């Protein structure tokens, strides 16, 4: 499963990170080595083994569904790069 330049551009597209040709070259090499390492995992017998998805064993907590205090709009928006009143400003998305 050799990693191709298209794979890197596709991952960058999905991850919403702009990369140029030169960066893509570097990542093909770096990620290619990682992918080779992942491939070695194919040799391990995992028949019947459950996956470990998290390490909080035995906890599946429920909490009461109640209204609790949270940040005020002013606090929540204090770091906004662009805002208007209590709204976040973004570029136009509907032409």
């Amino acid at each position: 499963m050799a990693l191709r330049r298209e794979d890197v551009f596709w991952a960058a597209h999905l991850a919403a990170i702009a990369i140029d040709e030169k960066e893509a070259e570097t990542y093909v090499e770096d990620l290619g080595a990682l992918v080779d390492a992942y491939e070695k995992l194919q040799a391990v017998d995992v028949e019947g083994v459950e996956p470990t998805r998290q390490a909080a064993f035995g906890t599946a907590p429920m909490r009461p569904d109640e209204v609790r205090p949270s940040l005020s709009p002013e606090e929540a928006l204090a770091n906004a790069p662009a805002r208007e009143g209590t709204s976040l400003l973004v570029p136009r998305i509907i032409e």
Partner: protein
Amino acid sequence: MSLTDLTIRGLAEALARGETSSEEATRACLERIRTTDETLGAFLHVDEERALERARASDARRREGKALGPLDGIPVAIKDNISLRGMPTTCASKILEGYVPPFDATVVERLEEAGAVVLGKLNMDEFAMGSTTETSAFRVCRNPWDVNRSPGGSSGGAAAATAARQVFGALGTDTGGSIRQPASHCGVVGIKPTYGRCSRYGVVAYASSMDQVGTFGRTVEDAALLLQAIAGHDPRDATSLDEPVPDWVGALEGASLEGMRIGIPKELFVKGLDPEVESTVRAAIAQLVSAGAKVEEISLPHTEHATAVYYAIAPAEASSNLSRFDGIRYGLSVREGGMRDLYEKTRAAGFGTEVKRRILSGTYLLTKEHQPLFQRAQRIRTLIRRDFEEAFAKVDVIVSPVAPTAARRLGEAFESPVESYLADTLTLLCNLAGIPGMSVPCGFTSRGLPVGMQVLGRWKDEASILRLGAVYQRETDWHLQAPPEVA
């Protein structure tokens, strides 16, 4: 001996006896930061005014006979991925430059409720991705034992600041070794508790199934005092362990290793291990035996796959977690063109190379085509956990080196990212299994660089690793060595 050379316990006793004040100790630390940090680069942010205010409040409490406990008035600092209301939190990334969290992390809330005085935020690898602190977007962090060397990482600032007497202790995070490895390289104690022991609420996520907050101190007792304050169930973190926190610190008094069974995993003494590191750790093990412990060789057979498993799971989780940095609600925002441009250009300009590398490899693995491989990694993670379960049926703790070498030279490139990832093998097993681990100083190389021994415990059994560490420090004086003065 100056005030900043005291341990947390020593300072707490001096405060209790009225020999010094928190303000005096805080000023002494701030002065050390002023004189040493231009070179060391351990801090990304220092808030003198806030610290002095808190220190004076601590002194006032003490005068009224209302001192809070052993941490009241003790100057500490926190890694820059842990939120403190009103203080910048950047994760050493340009994408979070200028971001000021509107809330405290639970661990910070608890630390301050115990009276500790937070001096500022500590340098780290960007988003905790790295093991040299060289991926920090803001400044170089240096090892106090040799300023041409890296302090390790990702919590390099926390380890360097604690070693250099800029603070009495610190909080860090450990996803694959980010507390234990820099602790080892800087000659201090670093504890990564059981997954879920400390709340992740308010801690910027890297790989959520392994991220854990932990502590740095110059002694096992100091690191345990900090851990005692911040551990415990938190309903705001769904993965928080809902279990009582034992009195770890109290149990250290008069502790003994009589009858303790120590496992030495043959897979963790492998080729590539620096002979000096190996002989130092083996000498420490011999000392543990003379203190009453029993040693036996054990096996963790799936170790050879651990690095690939970790570097599949951690980037996959990271690619998902870091999608929140979109340039809209906070942080860097490159506003050129439409919505898609905003996302892509903000993230291109805001993330460094290593972070992008991990996001891209994680994204790649999570595409439909490659998901079976990702799930295979999660299954092998189960096999790694079972290795530990089997080992811990025979022994109480496991001892190994923390890292294959002592601190590396700054800028000394690994041949490839994969080669650098392999250096994390000894520490990341512990995160995959969710068990507690610690690094304890156990000697020096011939160049005078500190070496740490890693101690791993059963799930939820921090008590045994702390006991081993405390007894070891009673018998040795490695932890009492101070690095040379920084010019």
